[in-house]
């Protein structure tokens, strides 16, 4: 349940450390974003000497939420933090490595590259 003003960790090595959600892509008055949704975010904290800098506006896809993810099989998955992966307009990740566990749902949303880079897909 990510909404504007939510701070998210960055789960890749694109250069950003922390993002703040500004807007949720999808519908005009969409309230919350869940895993697999694309958001517009501003970089609040960045790693020095990287292509991405602080206060830059980027798009990101949410990969982990503290709010539970419910699967059709009845399984409920809850992560420990809110995290996103910085992507470009097409949906390809800007970084080359992904950190942490990624849920399988991202494959359905056509973020196959993120899933393939993930160290663990749960």
């Amino acid at each position, binding site marked *: 349940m990510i909404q504007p003003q939510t701070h998210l960790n960055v789960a890749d090595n694109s250069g950003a450390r922390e993002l703040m959600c500004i807007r949720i892509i999808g519908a005009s008055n969409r309230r919350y974003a869940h895993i697999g949704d694309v958001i517009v975010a501003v970089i609040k904290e960045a790693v020095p000497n990287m292509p991405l800098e602080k206060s830059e506006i980027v798009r990101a896809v949410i990969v*982990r939420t503290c709010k539970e993810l419910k699967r*059709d*099989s*009845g*399984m*409920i*998955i809850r*992560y420990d933090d809110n995290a996103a992966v910085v992507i470009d307009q097409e949906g390809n990740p800007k970084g080359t490595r992904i950190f*942490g566990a990624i849920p399988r749902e991202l494959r359905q949303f056509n973020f196959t590259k993120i899933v393939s880079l993930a160290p663990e897909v*749960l």
Partner: protein
Amino acid sequence: MQAKFLLRVRPYRKAPLLQLGHCDYRIYVMVLQDVFALRTVQNSSEQQSPTEILKGKTILKVIEKNIISGSRSQRTRYNPATTMVLKTELCRFSGAKIYPGKGIRFIRSDSQVFLFANSKCKRYFHNRLRPAKLTWTAVYRKQHKKDIAAETVKKRRRATKKPYSRSIVGATLEVIQKRRTEKPEVRDAAREAALREIKERIKKTKDEKKAKKAEVMSKAQKTGKSNVPKGALPKGPKLGGGGGKR
């Protein structure tokens, strides 16, 4: 050709919903055991309705990662996220069984997965309570050795071995049985007899050696010169002694 099935579980229902690839029957399978193994059902060209097939206790297999060969509409609906895991897991906190469709899975930031049977276990975990201190958890029960008597009895039962009653290459079954039923007195008597035999044999060879030696000595004295080389004499008794000792 065999039909393959997608098993989808509706949450909050105890019986899973079974959707067959070829026909639109919906069958409710009761959960009978902890792990229900399923085997592929024959093609419906056999003209058996799915209920009949299940009554005959055929079990169905869910092939998780294969694409379902069914009608096209079913194929497009295949979704890896919805295939069910048909195995009960254990709660990390209480040790209770978690049936499919129940429980909460918590993935920590270090990618360690915790399974909880219900929100009670989850809540206690997050409040950092120790399961070893709560009487109702499996960890506590194991630590305080509750209900172990039944387990140890079971283990003892398993330990008793039956005497191996099969013929081996070296000895046929009758020989083995005969040996087994032999009384110790009989065995001792047989052993003694064998020993006696060996002793007699040794004695016999020794006597023979002595006799031979005496003959040779006497012959040597008569001739004055020892025609037989000295090496022969010591060789003789040694050879005989070696055989007897064996």
